[in-house]
């Protein structure tokens, strides 16, 4: 799907631009976007390293386990098929907490690590003899040593957990829209924070809709 989406975006962009005399703009946009992506990555490398490094400390000192236990009922409700001790749970927990508090810079690293962990979980599932409840071997990166049953190329499809995790993420979990409040203040609002209450309601609605969709899909398609 991404291959088509990407291809269509490029083709449509260039064709539409050609008919509207926007060719020089497109050249500039293509070059500057590529450059922007690298700049963004460099910024992100710093943030990501800082955050994952801190998380390593938090994990070794037992903080993550504590937090994970606290919101476990919710995680279990959303992702019942992730085994108890799988690292994916930990990363999803961190991502959800960071999102709720609006720490976007912390949510993305945890989210990406969660996707990697979910991918490893899928690889384990493809291996014959996978029992479903066995925790990954400690000390070893889960799924790394499993060569058999590995599917590569265009057939790699998202697991239910991946779909649900992304929908949950995209449904927006942020409780207080701090950025928007700051912008509103900057542009002379009489009461910048007036949106807090309604924003919480709107976010709750979109998240509820997302969860509902996931649950219906889970039931319909199984895995």
């Amino acid at each position, binding site marked *: 799907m991404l291959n088509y989406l990407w291809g269509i975006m490029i083709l449509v962009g260039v064709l539409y631009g050609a008919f509207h005399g926007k060719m020089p703009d497109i050249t500039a946009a293509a070059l500057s976007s590529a450059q922007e992506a690298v700049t963004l990555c460099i910024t992100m490398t710093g943030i990501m390293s800082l955050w994952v*490094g*801190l998380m390593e400390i*938090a994990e070794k000192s037992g903080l993550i386990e504590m937090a994970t236990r606290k919101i476990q009922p919710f995680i279990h409700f959303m992702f019942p098929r992730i085994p108890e001790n799988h690292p994916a749970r930990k990363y999803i927990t961190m991502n959800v907490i960071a999102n709720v508090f609006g720490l976007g810079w912390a949510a993305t690293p945890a989210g990406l690590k969660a996707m990697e962990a979910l991918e490893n979980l899928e690889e384990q599932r493809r291996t014959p003899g996978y029992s479903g409840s066995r925790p990954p071997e400690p000390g070893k990166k889960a799924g790394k040593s499993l060569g058999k049953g590995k599917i590569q190329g*265009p057939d790699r*499809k998202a697991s239910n957990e991946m779909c649900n995790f992304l*929908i949950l993420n995209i449904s927006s979990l942020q409780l207080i829209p701090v950025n928007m409040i700051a912008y509103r203040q900057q542009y002379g609002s009489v009461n910048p924070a007036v949106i807090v209450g309604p924003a919480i309601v709107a976010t709750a609605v979109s998240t509820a809709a*997302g969860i509902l969709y996931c649950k219906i899909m889970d039931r319909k398609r199984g895995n």
Partner: protein
Amino acid sequence: MEKAFDFLLYLSDAIVPVLIFFIVACGLAAKIQVYDEFVKGAEDGFRTVIKIMPTLIGLMVAVGVLRASGFLDFLSGLLCSFTDRVHFPSELVPLTVVRLFSSSAATGLALDIFKQYGTDSSIGLLASLMMSCTETVFYTMSVYFMTAKVRRTRYTLGGALFATGAGILASIMLAGMMRAGM
């Protein structure tokens, strides 16, 4: 209200340093080799970003090309005939479309709307709410799925758009209620 707001801003300023302090303090209290562990984790994070860098370049070029071509504006124009029927202000259609692709571009558009219509107009309120309860659907999906090397995304896009739509609908109703109460 003013006080509560100041506190909120202070909180968002303070949360990161407090969090860092808290994590390191807990690590030291638990007798962890904090610096060694930090470096270990940092290396891991570093590797993840390097892995997604090509993805990000490809994606941002596509979005950049699409935006520069003027196609997104054209798409918004098409959608207007539909949104007029459901009483969705046509001024906000470009914002809604761009929001699906790029967070920074959407913020730019939202600020334009604030400048032009005021933050507390019904359009300004609606823009504030919409920005608060939605995410960049295509961007998030591409980056996350590329990290997991997944090509077939199954029902994710449907669910994401459904949640976004529900959020926008709720925003319209809430913004209307807020205007009525002001």
